[in-house]
């Protein structure tokens, strides 16, 4: 009998690349497009969502036999919104600068479909440790994609990275990249790049076989 459980490294790789919630599964596109106007915003949003994802996965997994099947989605939403409120209060108290820049989008984590999707697809069927790890790896993938998107948009749209000028003095920022249209363009290019890399990797591994 073989153990088919993937290793931690494989699961990390899945979260970051193979099953990246943004670049491959295209989940949570709304907050992705709205908050990634800068690297700081993208990273802050990613980490906030990751904290909610880990905590909600843990509690949903612990309560998976207690939550009635008929009202499981309502129960998940209550749990997720509770943790989002807790994270929002903690950010307001200890990271006020991040709170100022993300504002309205922190409460909107409640309706982030990545969190609800992982609760339904994973946490409700697996143990607490596995569910927490799933939240961590998916959260890392979400944070990675948001940070990358935020960095590209900030550099092209404002000529800065984390607030520091990184472009040559005569560079004119392309404002479209901090607008929603720029978010779609950048996300499209990133998805194309990820697909190209995956196809290349598949061909390479196919050639070896």
């Amino acid at each position, binding site marked *: 009998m073989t153990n088919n459980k993937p290793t931690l490294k494989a699961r990390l790789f899945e979260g970051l690349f193979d099953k990246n919630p943004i670049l491959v599964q295209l989940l949570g596109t709304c907050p992705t497009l709205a908050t990634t106007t800068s690297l700081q915003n993208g990273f802050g949003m990613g980490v906030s969502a990751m904290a909610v994802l880990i905590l909600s996965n843990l509690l949903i997994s612990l309560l998976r036999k207690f*939550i009635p099947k008929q*009202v499981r989605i*309502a*129960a998940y939403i209550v749990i997720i919104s*509770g943790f989002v*409120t807790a994270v929002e*209060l*903690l950010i*307001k108290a200890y990271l006020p600068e991040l709170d100022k*820049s993300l504002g309205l989008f922190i409460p909107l984590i409640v309706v982030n479909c990545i969190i609800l999707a992982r609760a339904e697809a994973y946490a409700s069927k697996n143990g607490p440790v596995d569910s927490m790890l799933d939240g961590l790896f998916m959260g890392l993938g979400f944070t990675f994609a948001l940070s990358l998107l935020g960095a590209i948009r900030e550099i092209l749209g404002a000529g800065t990275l984390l607030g520091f000028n990184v472009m040559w003095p005569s560079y004119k920022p392309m404002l479209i990249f901090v607008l929603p249209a720029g978010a779609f363009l950048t996300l499209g290019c990133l998805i194309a790049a990820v697909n190209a890399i995956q196809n290349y990797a598949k061909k390479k591994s196919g050639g070896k076989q």
Partner: protein
Amino acid sequence: MQQNNTKQLLGIALRLLIICTVIATIVAFVNYVTKDKIELNQKISTAEALTGIYGSDFNGAKFTVEGDSYVMKDENGNVVVSCEEADCEKKPDVTNLYMLRDADGNALSFCVAISPMGFKDKISMLVAINPTVGVKAVKIVSLSETSGIGTKVQEDDFLDKFVDKSSPIVGNVDTISGATKSSKPVIGAVETALEQVALYTNSKGGAE
């Protein structure tokens, strides 16, 4: 059969109630731990904005939070200026009306804390007003507008346009091209702030 269904429904409701209670307890605990810190952060932001407006008038001295009011002290620790909330009827979007007094208790200026709705979220701002002259300064405390576009409302190029202006502001200060939905509420808020001070001074019969 009917009894079984009722029993099942009650069971589901009870379980949901337990889940809600657990979550409410977690949120209540986090709120208990963070509420004082959040309140202090808001006061620090206001103190920083007040320093930005009045600091240069008093050799760069800074406002600090002292209980419910803000004070500016000299090098010897003596209070130079105090800023306290004035008790009055408030116009829409106005969160506080502060009155600045010198060490002898003479009224120096008014400062209106106002939060109009911007393009994405509320823009928290302070409008300093000298009733006889008009607007002394406008300072943005916090905003969540689009980086590079809506955030232009916090630049001095725009905010300096209000200095020394009195009512009417709307129509006399231009919106920012490309950031109309962020700059228009700021212009309207300065107008409201002037009206708020006029309302207060009229209600006090110009005594201040």
